[in-house]
């Protein structure tokens, strides 16, 4: 394979990966965020007490998280077809990736929100804040660095998951590695794919860390 061909293959696959990770990461996190906040605030005696719904949500989240991703991809094909109009291709692959992101991100958000000092919630209640004001002005504001790190972790995981959607013709770097590097036994392609993935994960992680640090005012030196 000529270097030019290899480059073109890599470039197309990179764009497919970025497309899948970006869309499913954003959509999945946007849906996962309120679910995570709900999980963290709806137990007995908390801001929005709804213990039954809290347990039910927790159960669904756990079920979704314990389903191996490759099984999820195949299992929800009818749903994918309903939503994307097709069950194969990059756009179709975004559906299972998004579904997998929601519970993953929700659990991370739950942990981040639970980590906020309970004293701050009490102080806000003593000021006459409504539960919604406490969520937006206290919990999300204070948990922001941790939520940014959770989002970074989610993107990194998605980059890994996206390698599996080759099973439904999703394309992307992982798929390239499997089809060319493994099935056609082209180790140079495999190596190139791995290098690009490492660089990509590194960039995402560094950007996420930097952003989280910028918003973290807890350990500033005067």
């Amino acid at each position, binding site marked *: 394979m000529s270097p030019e061909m290899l480059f073109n293959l890599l470039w197309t696959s990179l764009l497919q990966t970025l497309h899948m990770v970006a869309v499913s990461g954003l959509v999945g996190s946007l849906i996962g965020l309120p679910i995570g906040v709900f999980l963290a605030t709806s137990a007995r005696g908390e801001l929005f007490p709804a213990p039954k719904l809290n347990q039910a949500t927790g159960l669904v989240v756990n079920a979704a998280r314990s389903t191996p991703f490759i099984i999820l991809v195949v299992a929800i094909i009818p749903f994918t077809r309903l939503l994307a109009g097709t069950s194969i291709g990059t756009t179709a692959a975004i559906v299972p990736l998004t579904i997998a992101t929601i519970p993953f991100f929700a659990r991370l958000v739950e942990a981040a929100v639970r980590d906020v000092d309970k*004293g701050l919630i009490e102080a*806000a209640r003593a000021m006459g804040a409504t539960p919604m004001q406490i969520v937006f002005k206290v919990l999300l504001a204070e948990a922001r660095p941790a939520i940014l790190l959770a989002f970074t972790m989610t993107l990194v995981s998605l980059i890994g998951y996206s390698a599996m959607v080759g099973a439904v013709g999703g394309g992307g770097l992982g798929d390239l590695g499997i089809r060319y590097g493994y099935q056609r036994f082209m180790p140079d392609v495999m190596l190139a794919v791995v290098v690009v993935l490492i660089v990509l994960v590194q960039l995402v992680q560094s950007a996420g860390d930097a952003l989280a640090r910028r918003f973290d005012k807890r350990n500033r030196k005067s």
Partner: protein
Amino acid sequence: MTASIARPMVAFEGVTKHFGEGETAFTALDGVDMAVGRGAITGIIGRSGAGKSTLIRLVNGLEKASSGRVTVDGTEVGGLSDTGLRGLRREVGMIFQHFNLLSSRTAFDNIALPLEIAGLDRAAIAAKVGPLLDLVGLGDKAERYPSELSGGQKQRVGIARALATSPKLLLSDEATSALDPETTQSILALLKRINAELGLTVLLITHEMEVVKTIATDVAVIDRGRIVEQGRTFDIFTAPKHETTRSLLASTLGTSLPEWLRGGLKAEAAAGDRILVRLTFFGATAFQPLTARLVAEIGTDVNILAGAIEEIAGEPFGTLVVAYPAAPEVLARADRFYAETGLATEVLGYVA
């Protein structure tokens, strides 16, 4: 105290509070009756677990009483809807032991938080926060984050934040317990100034007698969920009636006996023993040169074993532990002298 205060700012009437059910049930408050005077600084003191945290949280509805009534400025807290409760909380500021400042907000934005919650616009918020920062002496720290401030400065931000909505009552939950003695004094001085300048009623809970002694005009002593003693701070401190009050006081007022003395103390006198008497000076007797007269009246065989001169809620107060021969003629002379001068005395025991 309850009966003597007309239109109190806060009143507790037969208040009880239980936590949990069945086997694990715990009674935090057990029939509390108490009134907090308008414009006063009232201290509630007790050991940890005595119920004081629960008591103060009933005032702004962070906890709900199991039975009894809690009223703030005539409004019964337990009868308020969620909306009514939020309205009340805007009229009652609160400061905390661990400050509870948002780490993600600057000093300015922390003070602005209750105003944002109340729905004020940016201009109105800025107009309120600036003067508050100056009031607490942090005019130059507006853009600092809590992690860049010292403990005392954080509590000043906490105080400014509690004052932002111009409350009529300030609740202080162990506000100085995490601070060193010097910073504690400066925070107490600030609270005293705010009380005087703004006419704000202050209700504080603490386990430190020092805090009550320094700023509280009135005090209630709480023990195992009951108020065991309440009244003017000076009266309670100079003539404590309940055992809890005495033991809380002993460490602060220098009235506890040195270890070596307590060991040899006897309840009955034997021949040749010396009597140990605690003299208490306050009010008129605090200003008279009584020690010299004591020696002149009783004889030169008087020695001073312990003593301290204190200021309680702005009034002088002294104690002196003296020993002299327990001979009948000496005792008679001493009693005559005490009766004549009005000194308060307490016989502690006898030593060989």
